[in-house]
């Protein structure tokens, strides 16, 4: 170990020993950061799971890529499909409806794999193989998301689990769907192959009742649920900010308590750069520990909430969101980065003050007070700026995002303003009382009149 590393390790040991002797303070710091990370990352896990479900739904049967033909009144007659095929149109039938399978209501989606455009069956790879005969043949094969397949007992079909199928949906052959839905001769819509042959008669001639629906309009769950997820994100961000204030207070207290130790360390020969670096490293170690705990907690909270959130999304928007949470390393990395960044933001002020104070100053209350007063002034200015921003948003802001920004600006301004306001009130209270009046030899004030 090099001398510099050894010195840093000895210094880190001395600084960490503070926490060993102040376990409550350590618990407060870790809990604040862990809770902040947990709430933020939990919300992000919910959002990510829901959005990935929307993407899956948008990709299911090529809904995001393929145009479709629909009838304004609802059903497309099977005769129209036959007429279009005979006229040379490359179309494929789809039938969707709610059905009771084994006592559970599911969305039944029937397709015709032989005519289906490649983009629509890409979601169910098993349809490419020799199982195709099983898909058609009795009793008929169904594909369902593993979560759905696990809870479904459907004697009418043979179920196969497939991650690509949205939760709550069972993909079957069109004939099986018509039989189970009691919709003989009826279809929901027709999928249009992107490469139609030239010279086919126009749609108005072959099937005049049908209309063409472009791809995006039918798969806009993400846009539909945007405000819901904005709500969640705003809640997570505000919870994170509140957690950071707890962390800021804990770090500030720890720095305050260790001012004399900083002076001693400097006096014993720890360079400022090493001391600041070790303090930052200590902060990072604590942030990593708290961040990891926060991720576990956040995952638990999200897993606990997801079934209800999924039910809300299904009920409100018909969004097929699974009730089980997956694990995404990117989510975990982002959560840890938030914890590290948050700890740096919360401890940044103290590190900055230490960096700019001369070696003997950390233990001199006056020097520290001057540095703190400067910092309080900056905080007051930031609070004022946020207050003005909130006012501007209240006057000219439009939409949900502006509403949340207004709320965030107000809350942060209030939180930032509390310390300078308290310091002002304390300073006012600490002023010496005015001396006796009439110092120039005047008479004392008259006594109050006697009570009757």
């Amino acid at each position, binding site marked *: 170990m090099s001398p510099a590393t050894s010195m840093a390790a000895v*210094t880190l040991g*001395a600084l960490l020993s503070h926490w060993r002797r102040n376990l409550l303070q350590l618990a407060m710091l870790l809990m604040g950061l862990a809770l902040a990370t947990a709430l933020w990352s939990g919300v992000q896990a919910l959002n990510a799971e829901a959005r990935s479900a929307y993407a899956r739904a948008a990709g299911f049967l090529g809904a995001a890529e393929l145009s479709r033909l629909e009838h304004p009144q609802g059903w497309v007659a099977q005769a129209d499909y036959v007429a279009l095929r005979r006229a040379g149109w490359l179309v494929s039938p789809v039938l969707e409806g709610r059905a009771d399978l084994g006592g559970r209501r599911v969305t039944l989606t029937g397709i015709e794999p032989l005519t289906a455009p490649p983009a629509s069956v890409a979601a169910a790879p098993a349809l490419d193989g020799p199982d195709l005969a099983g898909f058609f043949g009795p009793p008929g094969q169904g594909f369902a998301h593993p979560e759905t397949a696990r809870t479904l007992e459907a004697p009418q079909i043979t179920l196969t689990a497939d991650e690509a199928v949205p939760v709550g949906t069972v993909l079957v052959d069109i004939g099986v769907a018509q039989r189970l839905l009691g919709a003989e001769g009826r279809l929901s819509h027709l999928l249009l192959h992107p490469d139609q042959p030239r010279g086919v008669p126009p749609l108005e001639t072959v099937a005049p009742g049908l209309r063409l629906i472009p791809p995006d309009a039918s798969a806009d769950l993400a846009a539909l649920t945007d405000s819901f997820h904005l709500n969640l994100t705003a809640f997570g961000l505000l919870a994170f900010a509140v957690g950071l204030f707890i962390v800021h207070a804990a770090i500030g207290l720890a720095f305050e308590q260790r001012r004399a130790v900083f002076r001693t360390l400097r006096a014993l020969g720890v360079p400022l750069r090493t001391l600041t670096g070790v303090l930052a490293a200590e902060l990072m170690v604590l942030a990593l520990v708290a961040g990891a705990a926060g991720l576990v907690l956040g995952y638990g909270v999200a897993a606990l909430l997801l079934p209800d959130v999924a039910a809300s999304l299904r009920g409100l928007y018909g969004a097929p969101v699974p009730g089980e949470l997956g694990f995404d390393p990117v989510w975990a990395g982002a959560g840890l980065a938030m914890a590290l960044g948050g700890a740096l933001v919360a401890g940044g002020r103290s590190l900055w003050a230490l960096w700019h104070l001369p*070696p003997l100053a950390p233990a001199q209350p006056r020097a520290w007070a001057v540095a703190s007063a400067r910092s309080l002034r900056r905080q007051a200015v930031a609070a004022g700026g946020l207050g003005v921003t909130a006012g501007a948003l209240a006057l000219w802001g439009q939409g949900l995002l502006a509403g949340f920004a207004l709320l965030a600006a107000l809350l942060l301004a209030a939180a930032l303003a509390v310390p300078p306001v308290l310091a002002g009130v304390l300073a006012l209270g600490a002023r010496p009382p005015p001396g006796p009046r009439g110092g120039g030899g005047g008479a004392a004030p008259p006594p109050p009149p006697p009570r009757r």
Partner: protein
Amino acid sequence: MAYISGMSAQPAHDDTAAPALRVQGLRKSFTTSEGPLTVLDGVSLQLERGESLALTGESGSGKSTLLHICAGLEPADGGTVEIDGRAMSGASDAGRAALRRGGVGLVFQQFNLIPSLTVAANLSFQARLAGRHDPDFTADLAARLGIEALMRRYPEQLSGGQQQRVAVGRCLAARPALVLADEPTGNLDEATGDTVLDLLLDTTSEAGAALLLVTHSPRLAARCGARAHLRAGRLDAP
């Protein structure tokens, strides 16, 4: 023999061994509401290893400032400071810290032990920082200071005299060339203070380090090898 400007002849220059402390023409003034206040006005002194010098003076005369400048904790307006032949003046923060770590032991009036470390950890702390920790030497030092039974305790569990013994041990365990002690008995009763000073003088001398002691007490100053009085920014005979 300690050399102090204006008090004795400058010693012959010795090429073989650098003095533990050499201060030349040190100047320092502070800006006050009544104008600049000069506390050090061309102070020079020199201390060899094994020597001790007591520095006395009125409150605010600049004794502690001189000590802090020697330790590289405060900048001077002019002049130079050398510790064991290495220049403290003009060095970077890291350079000054390295000199303090390896060459200077500091003993404060307030003891300044690290409250979250045990006596044993405090005792070996500076030696570990300097990469010179020798467990046997530290154990001998603890025995010499009479604190070997306190090694597992924390500073808050010690009396003032015991804390100051630990602080003396901490600075000597790193085997510095120079010990700078700022009113080391200022917070102790007379009997405890005498015991601590005896230990400080003896152990510093045994370790072959020079001692610069700042004190208000002429009685304590008289026990050092040499004495100097700081008045109007200059060193005089007491």
